[in-house]
């Protein structure tokens, strides 16, 4: 009864060719077919943001996409961020600000922020809160996350 679809998708720079069950959602494909388990799943309804990845540079909730929709696209996940043994500047900002506790939400915030940092726009703390409101965190109370993102965005803009 399964309906297999062949797809070609680039994940973190590596091209993957796979045959996927048509009803597999993209988060499950990343996690269970490609074994990239840094992308998490918290609701499968597009609410919690745990599954946020970049699709052609835009932050999207991968539980709302079916794996066949990834065909021909480029995906970036949290596994792409660290620079070998070192963390990247955004990850360091999260660590320094104690912006994570259990860490389950962290990939979602990191990928959302990665997309924000690329457009280089200046954002107030309030705007940052709004941008981050698509990802939930139940541990930190958000303040430290907002601080980490604010610092990172201003450093990324070179101020």
């Amino acid at each position, binding site marked *: 009864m399964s309906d297999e679809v062949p797809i070609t998708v680039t994940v973190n720079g590596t091209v993957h060719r796979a045959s996927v069950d048509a009803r597999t959602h993209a988060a499950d494909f990343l996690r269970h077919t490609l074994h990239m388990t840094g992308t998490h799943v918290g*609701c499968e309804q597009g609410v919690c943001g745990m599954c946020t990845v970049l699709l052609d540079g835009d932050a999207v909730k991968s539980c709302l996409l079916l794996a066949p929709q990834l065909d021909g696209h480029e995906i970036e996940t949290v596994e792409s961020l660290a620079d070998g043994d070192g963390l990247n500047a955004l990850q360091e900002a999260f660590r320094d600000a104690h912006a994570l506790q259990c*860490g*389950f939400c962290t990939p979602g915030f990191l990928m959302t922020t990665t997309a924000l940092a690329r457009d280089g726009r200046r954002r107030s703390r309030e705007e940052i809160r709004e941008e981050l409101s698509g990802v939930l965190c139940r*541990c*930190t*109370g*958000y303040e430290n996350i907002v601080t980490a993102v604010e610092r990172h965005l201003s450093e990324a803009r070179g101020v």
Partner: protein
Amino acid sequence: MSDVVESPSAPRSGVIGDSPARKEDDRLLRGEGRFADDVTPANALHMAVVRSPFPRARIEAIDISAALEMDGVHDVLVGTDVAARSEPINVLRPTPGAPYVTYYALAQGRVEYEGQPVASVAATSRHIAEDAAELIEVDYDPVEHVPDVIAAMEPDAPVLHPDVLDSNLLVSNPQSVGDSASAIAAADTVVSGRFFVNRVSGLPMETRGIVAEWRPGGRELSVRLSTQTPHLVRSQLAHCLRLDESWIHVVAADVGGAFGLKLGVYPEDLLACLHAMALRRPVKWIEDRLEFFRATTHAREAVHDFRIAADREGRIAAMEDVYATDLGAYYGSFGSAQLSSVTYSGPYRLDHGTVERRVTMTSKTPVGAYRGYGQPEVNFAREVLLDRLARRLEMSPVELRRRNMLTPEELPWRNTTGAVYDSGDYAECLLAAVDRIGYDELRRTGHGPRADGRYVGVGLSSFVERTGYASSRFLAGRGSKFGAHESVTVRANRSGGIDLYTGVSTFGQGSETAFAQVLSHVLGIAYDRVHVHAGDTSATPLNTGAFASRTMIAAAGALEKAAADLRAKTLKVGAWLLEVDDPDELEIAGTVVRVASDPARSVALRDVHEEAILGLRLPEGIEPGLEATAYHEPTHAAFAYGTAAALVSVDAETGDFDVERFVMVHDSGTPVNPQLIDGQIRGGLAQGLGAALREELRYDPETGQLLNGTMLDYFVPTACDMPPIELVHTEVASPVTPFGVRGVGETGTIPAGAAIANGICDALSGLGVEISRLPLTPELVWREIQRARGVPA
């Protein structure tokens, strides 16, 4: 790797009081955490669970034939299989005097809540397992259900468990000191109210999950589980599955939030194990969010009838709190909140008091532990009522609280339930909150309306919080199936570092970091040379687990002792290597052992460890090996405390309100790691604010079904929903704990509801608005405004 020799006077980093980079962060930031769903053994099967759609029904028949015929389905379990092969879930934290109303992993001929597991399927994929579950036909005959604790106690209510109970009251636990009835009768003023506390979910971002693997030849049931209590789960699995405990290996790697919801076993854990044992293949189950809302314990729902009597000067003569907690349909591993009784009188002096907890059964998802465990609930009732008393007496709420607060000189104080408040300066926190929020200024400028048309008010909420357990003997008296102690093993390795083994699993609280700090502090070794291994029952000493804000209180003592043992032996070996007669002349500093008075004479820890571990050249009198295991048994609980103040503005026409500022002053004793403490307080506040302002699991009283069991309609706070929070710390070391620590994990959840409710009532004091229930929604405020104006809402 270079051996850094530090100067004796330089302050060391990574010790108690410092905030070093967290041990946990590197892997989590890379997406390399190992959460329950991150590992799938080759050959694993996947489980799906059939759940009752009714709050209460008889099961007339179950037809599993179509499911069994499906390709890829390997096993189906129904109630009779489970009863034949396992025991009901055993209660770890029973209520004194209560009969067991526990349950099997699958329903036995009747269901008692919506979501109760009725059958389960193991199949080659989750998709197939879910499809097969849909093919299982259950013939239900719905019967009358009980929607809440008030209905449960109606004389004509159906008795939910007539086989064990005569009524829906599971047990009542009254505690009383003095003569509150006479004190109330003689008092100048008595205020009373009925307070409703909402049913909420702790809602960790990671749902529950398990991977169970059974190798009968290897005598091993290996379980990866998202849990706070691996060792307790191991004992429960042994009991429920009728296995020898030595066969069971539980691993809790990274846990994506827990908050009390991941204590002890759940039905699905047993089901996954039963499938794995029947099939001899690994079985995995990851709870989906829709299941979570019905299957993972709920929390808080309670009705408090609170009464306070005082004289004209506002001196409290007596308090009484008779409250019903909603246990739901069954008693799970932990059961409903038990700490409302312990802290009902708060930080106040009280000679005459009565508190009675009435644990009540209803037809809803079982209630379990959640951060705060009764303390937020009772705090709401008491602190709101205190403000009513202040208004009645025309006295400032600050003055009323200050007058009744225990002073540092009066501590330690045994409250009317026998709990001992160890130490602290409660009024210092109150006055700091009042000062910070600008209370007096607001009194001068009045409640408004301001230029924007809104009325403003300030609400206060003072609290004490029991952190940790007084002792194992105390728990034994309450039938507990766990002790108050914690344990740790520390073992030197040949790289010059220390492996620290703890049964405390990692779910965000930062224990890996804090434990390494304590070890570094006592031992003298560099923080980054300590590696923490957590949550694996085969590798760690037996322990209780992380809950009840007890970890640091109990574990710090174990760490202190184990470190002292290890240090003594390290120095002995070091003395031999350095040819020093008296090991007491040596110290461990970072990565070396050296002569304290002559730091240049040193030997690398790596060499000391190697000699000690290999034992090839050790002199007589020194046995090989360099490790220590220690247990610490607390002698007292430590009471954390504080006061929150909320500045609230209200639109008196619509009931819309804003928390414009929220000040939290608290004392957690000696701070092991200030950054972690701030994180715990802020995180707790977010949950406290969520429960106070927006979260509520709502049931349709007619159908008994959950109305908002998805993330789309259960509103946890987002980054935009948090009011500005200001934290103020005071620091009074507890005299009854190692290093003077107090627990901190639950503090933030306690004061929010009352502080904001009091702020709203203060803003609308001209109208005489009173609030008695949570959550505090604009609609609720609007209704109370209408009521106060005499308009039928």
